């Protein structure tokens, strides 16, 4: 690690060399002892994960009735959390794919980490659609297969689209991540001291030896995957948005949803990246590779997408008013003044007001501020999904059927449980795999040298 601190403008510490990059990234993994903080963090996350399994067990024993859902509010936390996690999952692919196509070199030092985050977020999200079913054992009926009943899934339903969108997204993200990981696995193989490590990484590396011809294929594949992942990431959250937009429910039935969901997804995704990267770079002393510049650039993305989301809110209100439809108008009014108004206003504060702090250069370069804002945006985006799902359902067309939704203990424990699950996976990742793409960093370091000379 370099002696003097990196200049904040640099995307990579100029003193870094091929050797130092490799050492900085793989060192903490290969050389015990592991930091106490890591142990504590993993233990905590693991315990919470056990809580999740308990909640799921009870759910399967008693049924979805243990949640606060009812008629009219037949969807609750399960769907809110699903959308929230999927949204978070979008930052990874966005960073590694879209920014790659846009030649944003600064992505290099965070893409690996964020791709991992994507995978784990999607894993958490994917739990919910199954858990929220009344009869989860029949979840496979949503897949097309030749059954003895002569029946097929009903392909007009957005829920079936979800199944394909989410599973595709998970698979492609995994492939993309693994392909990018291959050369680094080779590095790990070649640096690992223990036989177990060498064999383990060796098998995962599939025998990568950095042959220039392999590199050529690899680059092509990686580039095209990026090209595919870009529309994919847009499509997935559009489809999630359509889960709502396809319905006729006031507050859901809105054409703005797909783009506005995508915007919101990236918004929350980057917020989550910040939330995670800030402690991690401190914990593993990677300030040299994830510099303040990176954080600042992410802050700018948050600011931008924040405004996209703001536009979404505005257009929802505007169209409701402009349509003159009494039901649409009522829903918007009810959000602002109804029983769930606190959630609504808190959401506006977190998603619309707070990100504007980043107009100030000083603030978006202060790590504590960045961290605080990121947390608030995460909260705000969760609230957004809550507001969309619950306030639209609880008072719809016929006044006699209006109701309320009050989350139960099991709603909360399932939600918090997935957060623990997510963190547990993340901790394992940091422990076992290089959190920064070494091969790509090497290229960057050399380029930096050349431009330096």
């Amino acid at each position, binding site marked *: 690690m370099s002696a003097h601190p990196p200049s904040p403008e640099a995307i990579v510490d100029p003193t870094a060399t091929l050797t130092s990059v490799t050492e900085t990234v793989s060192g903490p993994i290969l050389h015990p002892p592991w930091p106490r903080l890591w142990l504590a963090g993993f233990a905590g996350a693991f315990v919470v994960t056990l809580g999740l399994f308990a909640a799921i067990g009870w759910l399967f024993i008693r049924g979805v009735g243990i949640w606060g859902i009812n008629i009219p509010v037949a969807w609750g936390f399960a769907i809110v959390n699903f959308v929230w996690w999927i949204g978070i999952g979008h930052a990874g692919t966005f960073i590694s794919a879209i920014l790659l196509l846009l030649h944003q070199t600064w992505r290099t030092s965070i893409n690996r980490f964020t791709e991992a985050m994507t995978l784990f977020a999607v894993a958490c999200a994917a739990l919910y659609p199954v858990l929220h079913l009344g009869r989860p054992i029949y979840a496979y009926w949503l897949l097309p297969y030749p059954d*003895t*009943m*002569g*029946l097929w899934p009903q392909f007009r339903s957005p829920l079936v689209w979800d199944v394909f969108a989410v599973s595709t997204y998970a698979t492609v993200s995994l492939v993309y991540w693994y392909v990018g990981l291959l050369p680094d696995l080779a590095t790990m*193989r070649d*640096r690992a*001291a223990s036989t177990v490590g*060498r*064999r383990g990484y*060796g*098998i995962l590396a599939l*025998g990568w030896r950095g042959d220039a011809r392999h590199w050529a294929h690899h680059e092509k594949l990686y580039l095209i995957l990026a090209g595919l992942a870009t529309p994919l990431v847009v499509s997935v959250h559009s489809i999630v948005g359509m889960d709502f937009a396809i319905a006729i429910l006031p507050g859901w039935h809105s054409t703005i949803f797909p783009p506005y969901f995508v915007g919101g997804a990236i918004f929350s995704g980057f917020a989550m990246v910040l939330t995670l990267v800030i402690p991690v770079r401190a914990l593993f002393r990677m300030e040299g590779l994830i510099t303040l510049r990176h954080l600042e650039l992410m802050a700018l993305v948050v600011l931008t997408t924040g405004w996209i989301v703001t536009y979404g809110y505005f257009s929802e209100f505007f169209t409701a008013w402009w349509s003159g439809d009494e039901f649409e108008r009522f829903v918007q009014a009810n959000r602002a003044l109804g029983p769930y108004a606190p959630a609504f206003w808190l959401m506006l504060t977190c998603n619309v007001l707070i990100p504007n702090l980043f107009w100030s250069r000083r603030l978006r370069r202060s790590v504590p501020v960045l961290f605080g804002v990121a947390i608030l945006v995460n909260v705000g985006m969760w609230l957004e999904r809550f507001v969309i799902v619950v306030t639209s359902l609880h008072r719809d067309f016929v006044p006699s059927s209006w109701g309320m939704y009050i989350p139960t203990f099991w709603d909360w424990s399932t939600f918090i449980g997935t957060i623990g699950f997510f963190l547990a996976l993340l901790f394992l990742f940091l422990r076992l795999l290089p959190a920064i793409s070494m091969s790509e960093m090497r290229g960057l370091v050399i380029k930096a040298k050349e431009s330096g000379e």
Partner: protein
Amino acid sequence: MSGRGPIFRPGASAKFRACLLLGFVLLLAVTDAGYAFYHSPWWSRVGFASDQPVLFSHRHHAAELRIDCRYCHSSVETSPFAGMPPTETCLSCHSQIFGTTALLRPVVVSAETNQPLRWNRVTRMPDFVYFDHQIHVAKGIGCTSCHGAIGSMALTAKGERLDMRQCLECHRDPRPFLRPSAEIFLPAWTPPADQAARGAALAAHYGLALRHLTNCSTCHR
């Protein structure tokens, strides 16, 4: 970190690839096996006779003695349920013949103690399937179409899979299965050569309304 030999000995790749392949093949095998079992009689119980309180032979009564199905299954033309013969029905003959044989002891006991016989169900439908015998026999579907060649069963066994595909096949186009009223209760029936023509004629004759037959609520409520 010098002095490190190679990690994998020659042939490691071969082994590794073999393992991958094997795993893949194994996966296929397991799914196929499951699929095969699900479609086998062991699962559908087709052709399996469950033991009964009395060794009753449909072959003897229905085919050899030519006793009409309706003699015992008396409500088949009036009710969704074909009806199981009360003990007294058995005794209408067996009070005269074989009444004393060990074979028929359970029947006699049932009559004496007024305790019903408990037959084991051969053809079991799930609770959510509502099959109406009377309309099927009224519209030209014969017993053996669903219950199999009952006339050749010494011990009664399940004759057909009776899964939803089979029901649908007939509900989409019953013509290949339609019979004239006279043949409905035959203990054995095979479609004649000109079934195509006859089926069409019979459909008209029975005034079959086909469209609602594939509605879910026709069988599920």
